[in-house]
């Protein structure tokens, strides 16, 4: 198994290499560049051209690419044209924000979805099951921004239960408990919104797996041996039904960093989703390439993680 993992990690290098070339070329295909937006009556077109030249944007793409790879290999992803700071600093800042938010979101998501899925499966066709299905249909149908805005309006502005924007209250010093709690407090509402909207898939998977498992031979055997139903559910059915969810866990973990543009925009929360979209709009090449590369790496890593997790939870699967 270790050999396979190592091999998979090594094969990622050419994959990421190809990805980086593709993304580099495609980014250059976009009309305009970071300096296009700088036109005002006072700006001097020759100065803009000069800046372009100094930034090396007039070189052929492979020259630019070569320079970029050279720096990237030394851990230098360049400077953001928009923010005028090191790309790694900006992504680092946003990644931490996004990680906190996503982590709490996923935690709440499982907290809501797993019990509901189990209940719906166990008592399927009951009134409880129907209610849960209705719930999951409704949350599936509501667009993210609608629920986010509704929550923000009622829970934030009307009831004042939650802060309405930002990631932390400015009055706390970094590193104190107050600061930490303020951060947590700020991500609570966005995380709840995200969790409620994301439950459908897990509930449905779990429910149908459990319904299937109930009719399986091993369940019947267990029952005929007189094992109490509660024990059958917790010991046998639950573990088997979780397999498909475990299969996704790898992607979920790496997905923690990609962020959600809607949630971030509505709650004014500086995260990765927003950074990605705005860097495309402003043609912030250095940020775009670094982000895509990161997302690509995470996706590859996610699939590897999923395979590893599967081999652990399901003895039938072995990575060769």
């Amino acid at each position, binding site marked *: 198994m270790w050999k396979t993992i190592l091999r*998979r990690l090594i*094969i990622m290098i050419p*994959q990421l290499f190809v*990805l980086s070339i*593709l*993304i580099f070329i*495609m*980014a250059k*295909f*976009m*009309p*305009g560049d970071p300096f*296009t937006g*700088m*036109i*005002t*009556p*006072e*700006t*001097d*077109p*020759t*100065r803009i051209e000069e*800046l372009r030249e*100094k*930034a090396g944007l007039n070189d052929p793409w492979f020259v630019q690419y070569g320079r970029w790879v050279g720096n990237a290999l030394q851990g230098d992803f360049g400077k953001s044209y*928009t*923010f*005028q*700071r*090191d790309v790694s600093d900006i992504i680092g*800042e946003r990644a931490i924000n996004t990680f906190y938010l996503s982590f709490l979101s996923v935690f709440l998501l499982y907290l809501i979805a797993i019990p509901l899925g189990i209940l719906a499966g166990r008592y399927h066709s009951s009134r409880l099951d129907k209610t849960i299905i209705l719930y999951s249909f409704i949350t599936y149908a509501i667009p993210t*921004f609608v629920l986010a*805005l509704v929550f*923000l*309006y009622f829970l*934030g*502005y009307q009831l004042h239960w939650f802060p*309405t*924007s*930002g*990631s*932390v209250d*400015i*009055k706390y010093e970094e590193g104190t408990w107050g600061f930490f709690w303020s951060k947590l407090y700020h991500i609570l509402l966005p995380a709840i919104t995200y969790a409620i909207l994301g439950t459908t898939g897990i509930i449905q998977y779990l429910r149908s797996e459990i319904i299937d498992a109930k009719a399986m031979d091993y369940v019947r055997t267990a029952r005929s041996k007189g094992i109490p139903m509660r024990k059958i559910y917790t010991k046998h059915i639950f573990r088997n039904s979780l397999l498909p969810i475990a299969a996704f866990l790898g992607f979920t973990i790496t997905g923690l960093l990609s962020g959600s543009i809607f949630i971030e*925009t*509505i*709650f*004014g929360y*500086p995260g990765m989703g*927003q950074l990605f*979209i705005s860097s*495309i*709009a402003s043609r912030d090449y250095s940020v775009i390439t670094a982000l*895509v590369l990161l*997302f*690509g790496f995470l*996706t*590859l890593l996610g*699939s590897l993680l999923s395979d590893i997790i599967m081999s652990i939870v399901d003895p039938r699967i072995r990575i060769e």
Partner: protein
Amino acid sequence: MKKKSLSLLVLMLTLLLLLAACASDKETAKENQETTPVTFEKKSSEAEAILDLSVTNDGKPIKGGVLKVAMVKDEPFQGIFSWELYEDGYDSDLMSWTSNSIFEVDQNFMITDEGIASMKVDHENNKVTIKIRDGVRWSDGKPLKIEDLILPYEIIGHPDYRGVRFNTEFKNIIGAEEYNAGKADTISGIKKIDERTLEIHFKQLSPAISYGGDGLWTYAAPSHQIGKIPVDELIQSDAVRKNPVTLGPFKVDKIVPGESVQYVKNNYYWKGKPKLDGVLVKVVPSSSISVAIASGEYDIVQSFNATKMPEIENLDNITILGRQELFYSYLGFKVGKYDYANNTVVTKLEDSKMGNEKLRQAMGYALDIEQVSEVFFNNLRVRANSLIPPVFTEFHDDQLKGYTYDPEKAKALLDEAGYKDVNGDGLREDPKGKKLEIKLASMTSDETAEEITAYYLQNWKDVGLNVTLTTGRLIEFNSFYDKVKADDPEIDIFMGAWSTGTNPSPSGLYGKADEFNFSRYTSEELETAIKNIDSPAAFDTKYRAEQFRAFQEHLEEVATTIPMQFRYEIFPVNKRVKNYNVNYGEGTELHEIELVAEEPIAASK
């Protein structure tokens, strides 16, 4: 393994789509909008566009207090706290609380003697003498020195400086180019005379100098704090990002990057101690700002999008102030090309589809901009009559009629010019009888852009002109200017806009050598007027005003650039604020703002 490379491929394709779509996801939705006829209902009440410029609320002021300011923005701010280095308007809004400006200006944006520094212009010798007041201190208590006035020039002129401010204007300072080329250690034209006096020598002074143009820099920089930091490291330094030393009524206390800034009063402020304890500025997403205003979260709101006016206009906890922006939008007609090899505009009226003056005028008369202003912008945009915004009272020509909505006149003009419907399809052919299709390039903006463009296309159709969209849809900002700059043959006419800044001079936008002269029109008359506006003779304001008039009249007549709209910006102000004024030149002194309640007031319904 196969599955994995497939998932990578899928990822790449998704990204490809994303890249292609993100730039233009707004346009694709309603691609064929332009063919649908659009009609609008006229509103019954004629909304009044002119809003108050200032507010004073009754009530006993509280002691101190923190002013809460919302900055409407859907992304984090950049946070470059340096007048020399910042790039977007949000950062300049943030810096307005701390300032560093050494001059004050009057309502016409002319520099006065009221500020930290005063200026004497000697235009015969192309020399400016700047004197600073005694006893002015930085927010850390250190005195303001002449070196602090010189430093900004040495930053902008430095070979490592990577901003747009090193431009033609800046090179007007004697020695700036040599310094930039690394041939000199200082800028030879900038001389410290004594501890309070600075002399700057220019190659050629124009009236723009009195408005802070010609290369003059109107801010000071704390040399004791940033003087020793290398220019290329400055922009990432703490002195610019975290704890800038400043001259204004407030100083930065704390920053949450991209989200909020907390200011406290600057006890060394030269005009006296501020009455407020501090100011808190927070970024608020545009989707929730109206609710935030209603629930009394903020005292003053900056960058509020005027199209959201109906959401807040009936709130009883705020006063909405408004002022005209230094802005105009326009309709441009391509009548030539830019010769990039020789840096000159080449006008070819005869060869251009839009070369006929009457056709251009007719297209101006055909547009029902009045209705668009009312329906979509609640009269917070108004039909523009000239290419100089009315804020410049000295130079704006209010006698000009502009192209007001008059479809009959448009039709008459087209008939006269020989654009007639030959084949009876309801659309006019060109004078030679050939099919006429005019391509319009228009930019994406908010969700109303599609509808407005569709309405304009309909207006033109009503007078028999077949106008279609370049690329078939609205164009994203970057592509738009790429195409317009390159004189793309797919563009016959285009709708753009300019923020003019405080110097109204049209040079840079309409001159013969100007790349930004996008309609590519030039003529002797126009060139003379532009040259005269910035000539030494124009130090006489009356003469300058005449030349401005000549410029505006000439362009109105030839109609190669037709002004479309002027715009108002609005500032919702909570009733807790005792005094606030947004008028240019007489804006509230920030240190005199007071509050009348402990917290902002919420709306009662």
